[in-house]
């Protein structure tokens, strides 16, 4: 059995890693670290895990971690970049959910994170943790850099169009709606329930760090693009809907779109297309994916303006974080890629 450790296991994303890993038939969850909750049972912080494990949180310790086969780093920015080199030296594999190794170009870290990267060489080696784009490279990778949650939604929605060079690079708008769990456990007046409920709060109207990843990945697939990104906090706990407004380089009809998307994502276990004439959920809606590893993608052609609207819905904690991370682990260790991830979402929620 593969031995697994989760560093930063008391956050929402950490909790999702625990929830998924505890049901995984090929791994043994050895270590779950948390400085603030060391000594506590996991269910003290994660009530959904009560009765599923008697494991307790512990302080992160390199020697104990390096006895595992793989370590998930669910840590804030600029933490994993200290830990990762030591872990890699000991020969174990690292799946980093933080932003520290996502970008290839160190200058982009200076620009978007105001940070000069301490290990630029590792940026080459790190593999971007999106199975739908990098399955082969993930298989043999030592270091995985899992994408940002909003980047995941936008990239998965737009990748097929980027590959066909269908996106006018100067007029691409990505308008994101995200739930409160996207901000994790960091408490502030803005996360205070009476102030957070019932909002449609533009919190990053003119750009966000995730733009760097989206442009990096779409640029590799097709022509370079500049993403006009706006994020809004809405009244939802889990979930992201990215509404992508694309002005195409050539006109095409709805059949072409179906062909392009089916072709690009043929055989993908966690991509679903939602453009349905029937039922209530005719386009992607986070409500339909909450708790699951699915990314629902829908599209429409606006005859009036020639615009293509692509809609992409995920659970920011699952496909946007812990789910994709475990999916990468399954690929790295040759398990069934869907192991522990065939979780139906809850409906209604």
């Amino acid at each position, binding site marked *: 059995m593969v031995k697994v450790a989760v560093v930063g296991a008391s956050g929402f994303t950490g909790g999702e890693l625990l929830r998924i890993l505890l049901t995984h038939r090929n791994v043994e969850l050895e270590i779950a670290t948390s400085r603030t909750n060391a000594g506590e049972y996991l269910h003290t912080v994660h009530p959904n895990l009560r009765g599923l494990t008697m494991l307790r949180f512990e302080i992160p310790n390199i020697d104990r971690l390096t006895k595992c086969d793989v370590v998930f780093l669910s840590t804030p920015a600029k933490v994993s970049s200290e830990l990762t080199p030591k872990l890699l030296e000991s020969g174990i594999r690292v799946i980093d959910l933080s932003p520290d190794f996502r970008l290839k170009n160190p200058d982009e870290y200076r620009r978007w994170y105001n940070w000069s990267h301490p290990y630029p060489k590792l940026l080459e080696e790190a593999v971007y943790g999106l199975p739908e784009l990098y399955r082969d490279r993930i298989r043999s990778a030592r270091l995985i850099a899992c994408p940002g949650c*909003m980047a995941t939604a936008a990239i998965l929605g737009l990748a097929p169009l980027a590959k066909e060079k269908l996106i006018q690079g100067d007029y691409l708008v990505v308008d994101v709606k995200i739930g409160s769990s996207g901000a994790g456990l960091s408490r502030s007046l803005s*996360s205070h329930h009476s102030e957070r409920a019932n909002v449609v709060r533009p919190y990053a109207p003119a750009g966000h760090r995730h733009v760097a990843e989206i442009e990096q990945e779409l640029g590799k697939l097709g022509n370079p693009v500049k993403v006009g990104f706006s994020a809004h906090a809405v009244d939802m706990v889990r979930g992201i809907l990215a509404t992508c407004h694309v002005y195409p380089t050539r006109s095409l009809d709805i059949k072409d779109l179906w062909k392009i998307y089916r072709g690009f994502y043929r055989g993908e276990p966690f991509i679903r297309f939602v453009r349905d004439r029937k039922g209530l959920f005719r386009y992607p809606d986070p409500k339909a994916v909450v708790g699951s590893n699915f990314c629902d993608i829908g599209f429409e052609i606006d005859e009036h303006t020639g615009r293509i609207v692509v809609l992409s819905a995920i659970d920011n904690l699952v496909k946007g974080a812990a789910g994709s991370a475990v999916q990468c682990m399954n690929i790295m260790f040759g398990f069934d890629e869907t192991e522990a991830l065939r979780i139906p979402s809850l409906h209604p929620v």
Partner: protein
Amino acid sequence: MQIKCPECDGDIPVPEDVVPGEIVPCPDCGSEFEVYLGSDGSIELKPVEIEGEDWGE
């Protein structure tokens, strides 16, 4: 008296008896300025850096 906001051109109400070093916020754009006396004795405003709130992910 009213002084033009350097950031957004709005009118900032400044008390007549304002003392150099006092901080005055702009009612329109929320920018904050430190009051100081210009070379000709007139009241001038110097921007005070406000740390942007981190909105999390």
